[in-house]
């Protein structure tokens, strides 16, 4: 079920009313409703894959409880590896089987050896990368004795399958989300109102910004051979805003929806396109995944401690794995490598933690040097997204070569100028709101200091804008495929 679908518009109020009016007096019943609703939400896409979530839930619940009593290190390790192998095994099979098979065949044929192989027609279960990482973090934290394993199977199931963030995050940690399932939840007007505001902002990002940018990004990337340099630049910029609006929009809807049910999820995006360097960008982009890799891969590998070689190795490891997490395609790996190359100079010169606060804190406008740094980071990001969006490496390279030709100085060709301008105006408007609200959890939260009437007026106008300018093509969320 998509957030931007009619089904969800019926599903959400129904679950909300049942949750607060029918099951409000009993946490167990509320949690059971969440599990049932989440399975329904997921099963609406393909009920067969519910078995994977259920299996992962049971395995990690059992492993967690076994780890509670087991004190011998080898046995604890074995339990941990059981969880890792089961979870990553599913992920590996559904997401990477064909990729590895094809690459092995290609590698052997390069050396003149022909191998007969049949790739499988495998459907990638929606959100498998997200819930796999979420359950894995639980087992690893229990193993490291950072959290207590839960005895409450229903609460644990709800933690694994919580529908707002099940298919595209934020990837929650058990330490943050699981305890919230044990506590009594009372309806909080301010929290619910804030949730609705965030949902609305998420929808604006998705259906107005991302979906309208997607039309041009798709058109330009799919016909890149017919486009001149300036059109290709526009295509890359449109994709940059498409992916941001799409994914951060999803996160906002997920976080806002959770707040309607009394839950607090982690912030997943913090105005990343206002970053002054790549290190800051990665502290602001897909925060739940970046911190996951930091805590469960980068730090165990030694982090930034050790010699230059260790730093380089660990940096590449985290970025390459992050790229590969996004999809079984070399384009994602190159995208990851490119970001590692951007990041390394900052790390090696100890400048990777230079920009920790919000840009132009307490000021209306950034300084010239801040603006320059933001634009440079933005351009580097745009360039890297070309690999992320391209169909394959050849496509990306051709795209870049055509983009960097002399035709970059011509007017963009083969695109509808009027619609393009309207979309650019929306992107600029969006950036303006993001800039004004950059100190908040999400940009629209900036209106919370206004009077209630004024807030409702703004909400009404935003709803009107969504209705009048949404792209009715109803594009899927990009991150569903990951």
């Amino acid at each position, binding site marked *: 079920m998509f957030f931007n679908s009619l089904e969800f518009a019926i599903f959400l109020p129904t679950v909300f009313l049942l949750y607060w009016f029918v099951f409000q007096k009993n946490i167990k019943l509320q949690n059971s409703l969440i599990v049932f609703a989440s399975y329904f939400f997921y099963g609406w896409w393909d009920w067969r894959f519910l078995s994977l979530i259920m299996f992962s839930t049971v395995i990690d619940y059992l492993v967690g409880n076994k780890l509670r009593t087991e004190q011998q290190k080898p046995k604890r390790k074995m339990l941990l590896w059981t969880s890792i192998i089961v979870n990553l095994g599913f992920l590996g099979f559904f997401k990477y089987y064909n990729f590895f098979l094809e690459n092995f065949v290609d590698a052997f044929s390069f050396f003149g050896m022909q191998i007969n192989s049949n790739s499988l027609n495998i459907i990638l279960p929606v959100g498998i990368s997200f819930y796999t990482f979420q359950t894995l973090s639980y087992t690893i934290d229990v193993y490291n004795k950072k959290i207590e394993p839960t005895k409450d199977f229903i609460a644990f199931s709800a933690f694994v399958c919580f529908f707002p963030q099940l298919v595209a995050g934020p990837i929650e940690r058990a330490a943050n989300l699981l305890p919230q399932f044990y506590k009594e939840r009372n309806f909080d007007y301010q929290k619910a109102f804030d949730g609705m505001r965030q949902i609305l902002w998420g929808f604006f990002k998705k259906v107005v910004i991302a979906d309208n940018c997607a039309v041009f990004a*798709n058109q330009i990337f799919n016909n890149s051979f017919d486009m001149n340099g300036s059109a290709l630049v526009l295509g890359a910029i449109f994709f940059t805003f498409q992916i941001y609006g799409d994914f951060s929009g999803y996160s906002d809807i997920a976080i806002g929806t959770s707040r309607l049910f009394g839950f607090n999820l982690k912030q997943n995006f913090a105005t990343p396109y206002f970053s002054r360097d790549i290190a800051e960008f990665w502290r602001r982009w897909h925060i739940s995944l970046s911190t996951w890799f930091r805590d469960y891969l980068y730090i165990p590998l030694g982090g930034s401690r050790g010699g230059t070689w260790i730093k380089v190795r660990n940096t590449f490891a985290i970025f390459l794995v992050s790229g590969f997490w996004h999809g079984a395609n070399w384009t994602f790996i190159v995208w990851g490598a490119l970001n590692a190359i951007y990041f390394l100079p900052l790390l090696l010169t100890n400048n990777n933690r230079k920009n920790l606060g919000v840009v132009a804190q307490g000021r209306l406008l950034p300084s010239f040097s801040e603006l320059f740094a933001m634009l440079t980071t933005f351009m580097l990001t745009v360039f890297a997204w070309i690999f992320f969006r391209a169909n394959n490496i050849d496509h990306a390279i051709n795209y870049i070569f055509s983009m960097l030709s002399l035709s970059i100085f011509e007017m963009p060709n*083969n695109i*509808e100028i009027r619609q393009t301008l309207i979309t650019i105006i929306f992107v600029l408007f969006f950036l303006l709101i993001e800039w004004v609200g950059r100190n908040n959890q999400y940009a629209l939260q900036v209106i919370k200091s206004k009077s209630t009437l004024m807030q*409702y007026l703004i909400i009404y106008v935003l*709803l009107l804008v969504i*209705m009048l300018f949404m792209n*009715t*093509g*109803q594009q899927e969320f990009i991150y569903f495929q990951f």
Partner: protein
Amino acid sequence: MKKFILETSIVIILICVSGFFLYQLDAPSQLANRINTIDSKLEMINLGSSHGNNFDYSNCVLNGERINKEGNTLYYDLQNYIYLNKKKYLSKNAIVIIPVSYYVFGLDENRTDRSPDDSFVNDYYHYLPEEQIFSYSEKKKSSLMIFTIQKNFYNLIESVNIIKKKKSTNLSLKEHANSRVINHKRLAGYSSKQKNIDYLESLIKEIYKNKHLPILVTTPYHSSYNNNFGKKWLDENYFNFIKYLKERYNLSYFDYSHDVRFCFNDNYFYNSDHLNNKGKSVFSSIIFDDIEEVLLSQKIIQ
């Protein structure tokens, strides 16, 4: 809780009322409107794209109607004909004029080249049965209301945008032709030519099967438009296909594309490939006379 539900409901109701207001401004699409108001058997129709607007039936002795749509594709020409025939809107021996444009063999069914405006097919959701709509989608159908609201809003905005309107009519025929031909050449190579020829053949066969008379027409174009294509391009992308169809189906074909009565006369053109009202009137009387000759020669009329 009650406060939250009440406030949320008020905002939702307000936005629904605003949407409903804009929806009410809807003027039904011209083609759907024309089809829905057919009240007597049609003796002559023309299909086609905006070039089909060149036909003026006001002084025609036969009961005629334009069944064309701006930017139309051969797939929907076929579907429109099937629909009219199924609804018994056509008289016995009805004449079906099929105006064909230079680029028509390169279009895809639903005009996906028009992205981001994928509203081309919306009109057809208003009257064609779902099996006749290419890539029919329930989601698309459910979004038609939003489309209508958005379209009406754009129309409302454009109605006060005087500067833009003036600018669009200020282009000279030559300037118009220059930009138009680039786009039309692109369209001619957008999709499979064979697929479109198949649709046209199906249409011709269907017309013959129902004992109606198909007539293929290329409407007049200004010389500046023709010159920008060049003879070689036109033969390879257009006239060779027409020749093949004409010979294979023994079709009546009228080619006014280079007709000297029109192509050098600026007074007849609204832009480089469309006639103005004066041109339409002259062209219609000429083509109806030419069709009459065909009917006489084939002894369909005495």
